[in-house]
């Protein structure tokens, strides 16, 4: 009995390992990697244009009506993206809708902000201790402070030089928070803890009751503002991105999947289009140029885009199936060969996974074939089928993995 249990423990281990590595190996060898679709709204023809890698490094470049475009035409249709090429080709300044755009105007009025699933607070391990950079440094560049802060039952600064709590600074900043009405502890701390940015806007901190506070270090002193952002919004994540345009501080994602920009206009929330948007699987990109805002979001299967006016009024929408979602022979064979796989890495999160991903009904083909091969083996070897049923059950549950495992770890006579 123990011998049998021991054998099945080994078989389970073998199935686990094979279901991680065999699908991975198959994908690497047989499934051609197709790139993502790059989708833009053309301010020139007022249509969506896209470019995607089809196969063998070939590009498909078209507008939304299906008209093929060569590379140069494609780039001239989205001149705010390729303004450096426009300059090289002597096409600057250019005119659209009676407005003239030179290099400086374009540079000053373009911005891209992105929210990838792994940027969402609960989808990656958080630092837990952050630098509060001086917002008005007495020099040209931002510099790192000698301390970092954490917020539990107070705002606490830890000095890096001696790795001890700076009681004085902690008291001053905790006092500023309390004065602004902050309820400890913090639910969420969001900021950009780097000096590789044009200026510093500090941190947005969500308190225990859901109120959002904006904290900055100005000339060494705290500047704490309770924002008018509703406390019942159910904030899931905030992504701050300082930009010289100073239109918005960053993006705010709610638990219900709504997405807003936090504007510089007294923290007014600007809603962004989120039809079919799934924050856990989709990359969301907001592309801003002097004439339009385009929200583009996609996962492995679909890409959606909404073009908007500078006031975020929707003017056009477009959706397209991604190349990676299209069925190929290699992908069909993959589904038929492996009934499931264990996914250990997920590009949408920095956390490791150990999730069983079923391959749908096609996986039953592989399971059926594995059972037939095993039965043939049993008949040829003239084994007793009654004794073989547990192995058969293993194969029925795990297909080719079970077949290999059972064949390699055969029962002893």
């Amino acid at each position: 009995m123990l011998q049998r249990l021991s054998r099945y423990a080994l078989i389970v281990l073998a199935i686990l390992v094979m279901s991680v590595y065999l699908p991975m190996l198959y994908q690497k060898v047989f499934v051609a990697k197709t790139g993502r679709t790059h989708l833009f709204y053309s301010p020139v023809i007022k249509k969506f244009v896209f470019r995607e890698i089809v196969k063998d490094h070939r590009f498909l470049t078209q507008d939304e009506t299906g008209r093929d475009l060569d590379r140069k035409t494609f780039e001239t249709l989205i001149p705010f993206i390729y303004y450096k090429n426009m300059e090289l080709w002597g096409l600057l300044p250019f005119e659209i809708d009676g407005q003239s755009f030179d290099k400086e105007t374009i540079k000053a009025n373009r911005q891209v902000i992105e929210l990838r699933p792994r940027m969402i607070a609960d989808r990656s391990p958080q630092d837990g201790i952050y630098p509060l950079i001086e917002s008005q440094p007495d020099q040209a560049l931002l510099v790192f402070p000698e301390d970092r802060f954490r917020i539990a039952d107070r705002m606490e600064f830890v000095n890096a030089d001696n790795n001890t709590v700076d009681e004085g600074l902690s008291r001053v900043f905790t006092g500023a928070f309390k004065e602004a009405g902050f309820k400890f502890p913090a639910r969420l701390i969001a900021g950009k803890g780097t000096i590789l940015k044009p200026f510093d806007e500090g941190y947005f901190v969500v308190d225990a009751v859901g109120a959002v506070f904006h904290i900055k270090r100005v000339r060494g002193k705290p500047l704490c503002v309770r924002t008018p952002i509703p406390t019942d919004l159910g904030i899931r994540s905030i992504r701050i991105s300082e930009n010289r345009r100073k239109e918005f501080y960053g993006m705010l994602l709610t638990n219900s999947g709504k997405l807003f920009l936090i504007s510089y206009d007294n923290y007014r929330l600007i809603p962004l289009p989120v039809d079919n948007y799934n924050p856990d699987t989709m990359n969301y990109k907001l592309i801003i140029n002097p004439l339009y805002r385009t929200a583009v979001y996609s996962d492995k299967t679909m890409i959606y885009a909404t073009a908007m006016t500078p006031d975020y009024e929707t003017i056009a929408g477009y959706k397209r199936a991604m190349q990676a979602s299209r069925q190929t022979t290699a992908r069909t064979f993959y589904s038929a060969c492996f009934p499931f796989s264990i996914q250990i890495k997920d590009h949408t999160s920095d956390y490791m996974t150990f999730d069983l991903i079923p391959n749908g009904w096609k996986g039953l083909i592989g399971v059926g074939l594995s059972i037939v091969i095993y039965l043939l083996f049993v008949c040829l070897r003239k084994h007793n089928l009654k004794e073989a049923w547990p192995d058969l059950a293993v194969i029925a549950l795990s297909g080719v993995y079970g077949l290999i495992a059972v064949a390699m770890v055969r029962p002893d006579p």
Partner: protein
Amino acid sequence: MIASTFYKEWMKMRLYWGIALSCHILVFIYIYIETRHMFILEHAEMVWYQVIHIHTLFYEQIKYLPLATGILLGAAQFVPETKNHRFRLFLHLPVRPYVLALSYIIIGLAAVAVICLVDIFLLSRITNVFFPHEVVVRSMITALPWLLAGLVSFLGTSLIVLEPEWPRKIFYLAVSYGFVWLFFQSNIPGSYISVIGKLIMASLFFVPAIFLPVYRFRNRS
């Protein structure tokens, strides 16, 4: 009988265990010196930035050390037993084979686990000297899969060494190698926190799995 087995196994392993422990301690001394040196060369806040924000693993030198220790102790324990079929004699002692095998595994696992605990202790002490407690906690979580890999590599090595037939040895090698490699798939600090429970549960299958080569060893060699 079991107590005597523990003693015998300890006598057999103690030299290798001592060597492994010394290597671990030496590597931690090196990590301490290297980390201290980082703080001498750079401003403390920049070192913190590199470790906390950029995720520089200042203790990366220990990454494969528990794995190597598991393999060393597994081999030290079972290679001499399989030579001249000595293990077969033990399996005919008046104790059930699986109890005897379990006692072997327990002493081996305990030897690896003690070194892992020393690692955890030293890592937490060194990290605590230079970094805030958030980094201490994250370092522990980051090193945990590496330490578990040490325990699993011990079990995997035992499985391979005890198996009498070469084709199966190779298959067990592939399974053990593939399983252990699951613990080294990400360098992002704290990324294993979500799966460590599942990996521990799956690792437990190695314990009953070892009884199969034990029985095969007794019956075939």
